[in-house]
Structure formats: structure tokens, C-alpha cells
């Protein structure tokens, strides 16, 4: 039976939705997790009970309305319950990136003066303990996995299960209070506080009310006709707004099932086992997956490769049409059906994407051929545009009008406007309440009429009437000759080459554009193997002249395509170098969500920048690096710089 939940918010808070689901969808699965070799499941009923006992436990610990409760760890049902339990008792859940080092954590935990921390395991608890005294407001730390924590006999440490036992023990006494708090809540209460990893400066705490979350969740769920029977794999960081919307917002609105992988390194196998019907992944995931597909096919028998290539080429033409219900000839449909049995379906199956009904990617531009690859297989992969402040959804692509270069039409309930500077603004019920303890940036982002500045430059594509994003407004600069400088636009074109992991284009207020290139070790390494090029380290590979050859070839192509667009033709790259180390979040060069920190990089590698512009062809440099355990070290290298051919702008009118 297909039960699409009744239209419009039936409940005004997440905890109330939980009650609704428990009564409506009762025994159907709410959460799954791969644990001890099998998928353990919880129905909505059980979930409600789990959350209740946890809430009672929190009450017993003395949690008060408005307290902030940090949740640190990888995706586990218990941690999702923790957030809902926190909401139930009127506290505010604050998910934190589990891979952030204590130094990054302290700011957030201190900024929201956290009262309680619910941590996954020893690793996280250790970080908290390391911060120790500096967390003045901290009352109690609750841990999920007791492993290795026995000997830390600290009173302010308590295990998750003990909290639940505690709650159940005092059920009679506490239940009235819990119900009272649930009643008092309304749509305006804070649902969650998420810290934006901010490409510049300190992270900001985005306060999202239940109204925001539910509005976004409902409209988007209806936009894509999500069903209660759907299922999703929750593997993206819990601190990221997307995961909150998918795994809690939409899950609670439509009542679909959230599955958590066994561990980070089994994600791919777990994905295949679960075979979700609704799937989100950042472009880099699809890039990586495509790369591995191609690499694995390299080793296939020549015949198989031939068939594969033929069918994939065929799919590129017909697949999207079929997906968009455009007319195709009978023969084409026949061949597609056959190829589907032989190649597409098995491929989708092994990738675990066979059942995907709605797939999204966002956050970065995705390479056209990558995008088309998945769509041609018959996977309904779409793009959306959003940000934390909007509880994700600003625009998304409707079925049947999907393109790789746009981000779609406004999500129902969202108003869009673009100012003369080209910056995109939006207004909706889902736009955030405020930045926590930060009125001035709240003011600067959200005006009195509720219009929120995205900070992205974009325009409405005349042909498709979809929104199209060029770049961050502040990154769209002017060259010294006054022409337009949009680095991201070029970088994305570069990053579409599987061998290029990251690219940083420079040239603001300068006479020409240059670039740092980061090679992708897997792809290039493989390429090196096949052309038997020996290398002992990332650095050596990066410095290899043949690699340089290949890269400059790609850049030349990019220049050619850029030159075709008169507006941006000045953004062609004249000189480049291949960086001797991977840009790394631990070194602050990119954000946890892998956005390039342009300014930071420019002054960290000022010597290289200078070399790019003083015409040198060699440059020695010494760089500081941070190892996983937080130690610092230095690597020095001699880098080569190369020139690349640039083209005259073609003034054909397109």
C-alpha cells in the first residue's frame, strides 16, 4: 500500500511527528543499522519508546528547556534518537562533525555553552576529556559504546543505556513533566542548531525552528512524491544540514526508513545491501564512483570492455530520453531494454543504486559527463541548490527537466530574486531564525522583509528558466583590465577531469589567470601504473613531467571552452603548477565540506603565487603540514611551473 502522508504539517514539531508516525505507521521500520553482521531494525513504535526512555533519562539528569546538547559521532540510530529526545525535553540538539579536532570543537561547544554531550565512543569522549576544564558549562557526557571507557571511572560520564534505564526507572515521576514540555512546544521553538563550516572566519550557529525544518521537509517531500515505503542510507556527517533534513526532517514527515551503515569503510557494501530508493551524495562521491567503475572496467576482458563501451555510448543518447519520458524509436527502446539486462541493471545493482527512485547531488557543480553517466543508466539523479540557512532547499530540479548546468526551479513555498550585482536572494518559511549570539551577521544576511542573501552570484537561465549559479559573489572579482573573474566556474571545469582533484584559480585584480592543481592520487596513480611510470610518493608523482603534460593538455581544453563564453574568456589560465601536497581540511586549506579556502591558500602559498606571476619556471617551497594525530611537520619541494596556450574569444552569438 502506498500511503503518502496527509498534506500540510499535521504536527508542528518533530517529537509530535514521532507520535503521529508511531500511531500511523506503527510497526513499519523507522531505523535500521548494520550491526553484528545483520541489519537490526526498529519500528516507529519501538523508536518512540526508545526516544521516550531517553528523554526521561535526560529529564532525570536535569536537562532544562533551552539547554544545548551536542551530539558527536557517526550516523547511528541512537544518536538520531538523542536529537529527537533533546527536542522532546525542550533542549536544542547541536550535531558536531565527528572528525573535527578538539580545537575546532571547543569553539562550537563553548559558543553554544553546551550543557550535555552525547558522544559515540571512546574516540569522541577522549576529545571532550582533553578539552576538560575549558568546557565550563558542561554538566554530563553520555557515551554510546562503552568499549574502553570502563576505566574512566568519572561521575560526569554515563552510558547511553544507563541513561535510558534511569529514565524508565523514574517513568511515573517524570512522565507528566515530559508530556508538559512536549505540549508547550510549538513551531517557533528551535528544532536544531547547525554550525556552518563557513568558508571564511569562525563557524556560525544557524538556528532553525521546527517551522523551518518542517516547511522545507514537507514541500520537498511532496515535490519528489516521497513515500512511507522509501528508504535512505544515512552516511553523511550528522552535523551537516542535509543529513538532518533527509534523516530526520523528511523521514519524520513521510515516515520512511533510515538505514545506518556498519562503518565508514563498509558504506559501499551496506549501500548495496540496503538498496535505498532515495539517495543523496555530493558530486565528489559520484565522481569517485565513476572513476572506480572505469578503473575496474579497465581490467575487464577486451570483449566485455567493447560491449560496455558500446552500450554506455548508446545509453548516453537514449537513457536520458527514456528517463524523461521523451519519445524514442521502438528499436532504441528494444536495444535499451536488452542492454539494461546485460549491463545497466547489473551495474546499478553492484553499485547499490538499482532501486533509487530519487537521487540528488548538490554543494558543488557536477561534471556533465559524470551527471549524464548516471542518468543514462536510468538513475533519476537530479540537482538542487540550497544552504544551511534555508534548511537546504532553495531550488531543485523537477523530474523530466534535469540538466547538468542548472540547479532547477524554486522549491514550492520559496520566493527567489536576483539583485543587480547578480546575487541570489530567497524568502520562505524555511529560512532560518537567526545566527546564534550573532545579531549583526544575522542582520547582514537576512533583511527585515525576510529576504536571505545566499552570497552566490547567479542568473535565471533563459532557455530552461532554471536558476544557474556562477560562483560565490565575493569570489567573482574583476581582472586588472576590468573584465569578469569567476574562478569557481573555471575550477569546476577543471575538476571534471577525474585526474584533477582540486584546482585553485588565481587572478583577481591581476592581468592574467593562473592555477594551482591538485592531482587525484587514485586516478593518476592508476594512470601511472598503466603507463608504467614509477613513483614513490604523492609528491614525486605530482612533480612528474608526464603528469604535467597531461594536466596542461586538460587546461588547454578548458581554456578553449572558456574562450567560447565572451563574458568569461579572460578567465583562461596562462600558467599553472601542480601542488606537492593534497589540500587538507586539517591544514585549514579547505573546509570540512571540502570547499576551497581561497584567501587562506593565497597567503599560505604566497611564494608560489608570486612565482606564478614573476615568470619563473622553477620554485622551491617549504610547507607546514598537520598529521592525523595533530602533530605538525614540514615538507619542502621544488615545483615546476608551465605556460598553457590561450585562445581568442570567439564572438559567435550563442
Amino acid at each position, binding site marked *: 500500500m502506498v500511503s503518502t502522508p496527509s498534506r500540510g504539517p499535521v504536527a508542528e514539531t518533530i517529537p509530535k511527528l514521532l507520535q503521529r508516525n508511531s500511531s500511523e505507521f506503527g510497526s513499519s521500520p523507522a531505523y535500521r543499522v548494520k*550491526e*553484528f*553482521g*545483520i541489519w537490526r531494525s526498529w519500528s516507529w513504535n519501538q523508536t518512540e519508546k526508545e526516544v521516550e526512555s531517553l528523554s526521561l533519562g535526560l529529564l532525570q539528569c536535569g536537562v532544562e528547556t533551552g539547554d544545548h546538547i551536542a551530539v558527536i559521532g557517526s550516523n547511528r540510530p541512537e544518536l538520531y534518537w538523542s536529537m529527537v529526545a533533546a527536542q522532546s525535553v525542550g533542549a536544542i540538539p547541536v550535531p558536531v562533525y565527528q572528525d573535527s579536532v578538539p580545537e575546532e570543537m571547543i569553539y562550537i561547544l563553548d559558543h553554544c555553552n553546551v550543557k550535555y554531550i552525547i558522544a559515540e565512543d571512546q574516540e569522541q569522549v577522549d576529545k571532550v576529556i582533553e578539552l576538560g576544564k575549558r568546557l565550563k558549562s558542561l554538566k554530563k557526557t553520555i557515551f554510546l559504546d562503552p*568499549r*574502553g571507557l*570502563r*576505566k574512566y571511572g568519572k561521575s560526569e560520564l554515563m552510558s547511553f543505556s544507563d541513561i535510558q534505564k534511569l529514565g524508565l526507572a523514574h517513568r511515573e515521576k517524570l512522565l507528566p513533566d515530559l508530556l508538559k514540555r512536549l505540549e508547550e512546544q510549538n513551531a517557533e521553538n528551535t528544532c536544531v542548531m547547525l554550525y556552518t563550516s563557513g568558508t571564511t572566519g569562525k563557524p556560525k550557529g544557524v538556528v532553525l525552528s521546527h517551522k523551518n525544518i518542517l516547511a522545507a521537509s514537507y514541500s520537498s517531500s511532496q515535490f519528489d512524491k516521497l513515500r512511507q515505503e522509501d528508504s535512505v542510507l544515512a552516511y553523511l556527517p550528522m552535523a551537516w544540514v542535509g543529513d538532518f533534513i533527509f534523516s530526520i526532517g523528511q523521514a519524520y514527515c513521510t515516515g520512511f526508513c533510515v538505514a545506518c551503515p*556498519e*562503518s565508514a*569503510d*563498509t558504506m559501499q*557494501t551496506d549501500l548495496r545491501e540496503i538498496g535505498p530508493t532515495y539517495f543523496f551524495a555530493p558530486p565528489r562521491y559520484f565522481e569517485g564512483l565513476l572513476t572506480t567503475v572505469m578503473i575496474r572496467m579497465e581490467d575487464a576482458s577486451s570483449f566485455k570492455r567493447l560491449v560496455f563501451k558500446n552500450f554506455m555510448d548508446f545509453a548516453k543518447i537514449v537513457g536520458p530520453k527514456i528517463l524523461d519520458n521523451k519519445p524514442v524509436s521502438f528499436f532504441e527502446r528494444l536495444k535499451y531494454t536488452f542492454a539494461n539486462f546485460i549491463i545497466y541493471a547489473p551495474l546499478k545493482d553492484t553499485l547499490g543504486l538499482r532501486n533509487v527512485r530519487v537521487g540528488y547531488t548538490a554543494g558543488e557543480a557536477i561534471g556533465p559527463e559524470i551527471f549524464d553517466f548516471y542518468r543514462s543508466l536510468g538513475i533519476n539523479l537530479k540537482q538542487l541548490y540550497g544552504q544551511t540557512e534555508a534548511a537546504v532547499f532553495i531550488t531543485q530540479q523537477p523530474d523530466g527537466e534535469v540538466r547538468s548546468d542548472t540547479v532547477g526551479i524554486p522549491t514550492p513555498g520559496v520566493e527567489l530574486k536576483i539583485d543587480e550585482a547578480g546575487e541570489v536572494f530567497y524568502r520562505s518559511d524555511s529560512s532560518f531564525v537567526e545566527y546564534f549570539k550573532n545579531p549583526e551577521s544575522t542582520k547582514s544576511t537576512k533583511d527585515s522583509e525576510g529576504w536571505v542573501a545566499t552570497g552566490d552570484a547567479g542568473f535565471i537561465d533563459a532557455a530552461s528558466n532554471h536558476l544557474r549559479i556562477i560562483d560565490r559573489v565575493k569570489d567573482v572579482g574583476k581582472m586588472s583590465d576590468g573584465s569578469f573573474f569567476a574562478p569557481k566556474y573555471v575550477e569546476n571545469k577543471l575538476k571534471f577531469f577525474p585526474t584533477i582533484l582540486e584546482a585553485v584559480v588565481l587572478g583577481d585584480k591581476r592581468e592574467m589567470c593562473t592555477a594551482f592543481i591538485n592531482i587525484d592520487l587514485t586516478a593518476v596513480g592508476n594512470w601511472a601504473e598503466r603507463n608504467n611510470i614509477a613513483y614513490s610518493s604523492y609528491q614525486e608523482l605530482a612533480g612528474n613531467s608526464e603528469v604535467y603534460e597531461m594536466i596542461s593538455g586538460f587546461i588547454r581544453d578548458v581554456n578553449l571552452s572558456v574562450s567560447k563564453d565572451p563574458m568569461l574568456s579572460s578567465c583562461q589560465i596562462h600558467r599553472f603548477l601542480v601542488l606537492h601536497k593534497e589540500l587538507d581540511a586539517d591544514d585549514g586549506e579547505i573546509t570540512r565540506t571540502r570547499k576551497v579556502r581561497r584567501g587562506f591558500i593565497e597567503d599560505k602559498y604566497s611564494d608560489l603565487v608570486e612565482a606564478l606571476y614573476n615568470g619563473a619556471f622553477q620554485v622551491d617551497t617549504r610547507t607546514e603540514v598537520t598529521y592525523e594525530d595533530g602533530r605538525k611537520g614540514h615538507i619542502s619541494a621544488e615545483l615546476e611551473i608551465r605556460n598553457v596556450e590561450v585562445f581568442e574569444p570567439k564572438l559567435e552569438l550563442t
Partner: protein
Amino acid sequence: MTIATQDAFTTDDGRLIGPTLLEVKGITLKFGGVTAIENISFDIREGEVRAIIGPNGAGKSSMLNVINGFYHPQEGEVWFKNELRAPMKPYQIAYQGIARTFQNIALFKGMSTLDNIMTGRFTHMSSGILAQALWKGSAEREEFVNREKVERIIDFLEIQQIRKTEVGRLPYGLQKRVELGRALAAEPKLLLLDEPMAGMNVEEKEDMSRFILDVNEEFGTTVALIEHDMGVVMDIADRVVVMDYGKKIGDGTPVEIRKNQVVIDAYLGISHD
């Protein structure tokens, strides 16, 4: 050895170690004319990590083989849980709650990681042949109960991704881990580890030490191990027995051993890493 007379004992890091679990008294083991072990006595106390060290051919492995019944010493007694142990076959000793791993891995190459560790549950499984053949009721239930116990060990040792891989195909380090898992599955009172870190790189050694300590702490399992890497031994052992040419030349806490002149001359003098 003043320690042996005390019935409780405090380690260097201040943990209190329980009463004697196993004690060997005056063990002498000969192969033909050769004397592998000569009149050795020491005790292993509940909940401690006991290390046996010594140069190659000092008779360490033979000592383990005596404890779990492969060799039967010509002289001496083995006391387990305060009872004099009559000569037994290894499999009977397994039922008494002593498990072990081997210096050169002794896994069942033809079976998956899961099955290997499942075999470790053998002493806990009792359903009869007919029940097994019909795969109904008790037999099936027993199987799944034990499967879950095994899965917890797999989770504990962080080897989920190789759960169904044939162990023959695993890299050395992982095989060692699986073997430890198999020994753990028996939920032993006393766990004997014969050079658990032989041939491992630094990282693997760190992991293994962590696992051993966690085992000792989580399940309160008493551990007796042979190890060459002095660094490791000094880190994880509560007490150390030092053997040389089949004789015991030292017994005490790592600190004491470091100070023990005889030991220094006989053993620590030579670098073993």
C-alpha cells in the same frame, strides 16, 4: 620472589591483581636427552597480563605447550584454580577454560573468518548429531546464539569487512587478529598468546597491544603472553617471567625486571627489536 607469597598484588599502574589462577611448580621437561625446561615455577594471577620473555630457545613456547597439554613434563605439577591438574589432553584443557594462539598462525585455512571464530565456540556448543542434521529447535537456536557472541568479537576486533573472507587469503596481520578472535570466542579464563606480535609492523603492534589490553579489561580475561619486543612487554605486562636456557632467571614487575642484574646480563643486554 616475595610476590608469590602474597595473595593479592598491586601492579605498577596501581591495579589490584586477584588471587592465583594457575601455578606451575618445579616443571622439568625433557626431549630424549635434551632438557627444554628445568625446574620452573611461577604463578599467573586472575586478571593480570603475565609476560614470559627470554632469548630464542629459552623454552618459552615449551612452557605454553606444557600449560595447555601438548607436552607432559617429566617432573612438576600444574595447579589450575587451586586444583592439582592430572595429565590431560589439550581438548580437555580447552574445556577447563584455557585458550591460546600460536607463534606461526594455526588457522583453519579452508574456512571463513566467521567460521574460524565460530569453531572457537566449540566448547560452548552441545547439540547432538541428530538435532544438527534436522537443524531444528535447539540446534538452530544454539547456532544463532553463538553466532551473535562471535559477531560481538568480530566487532570488537574491527574485522567486519573480512567476516566472510576465506582466512587463507588474508594478510598476515589480520590472520593474527582472527586467531586471537578464535581464542577469545572460547571465553577463556586464561588466554595464552605465543608471540602475538611476531612479524608485525609498529602500527599493527600498537593495535594488537590495544586489543590485548582491552580483552584483559573488558572481559577480565587473564592473559599470559610470550613476546620478544621488550618495549611492548614493558608497556602491557603487569608481571614478567624471564627464562634463559630453560631456567627461570627473573620474575617480577617490569620495573623490577629492568633493575634485575641477572636479567640485564642474560637478556636485555642483547637488543631484540
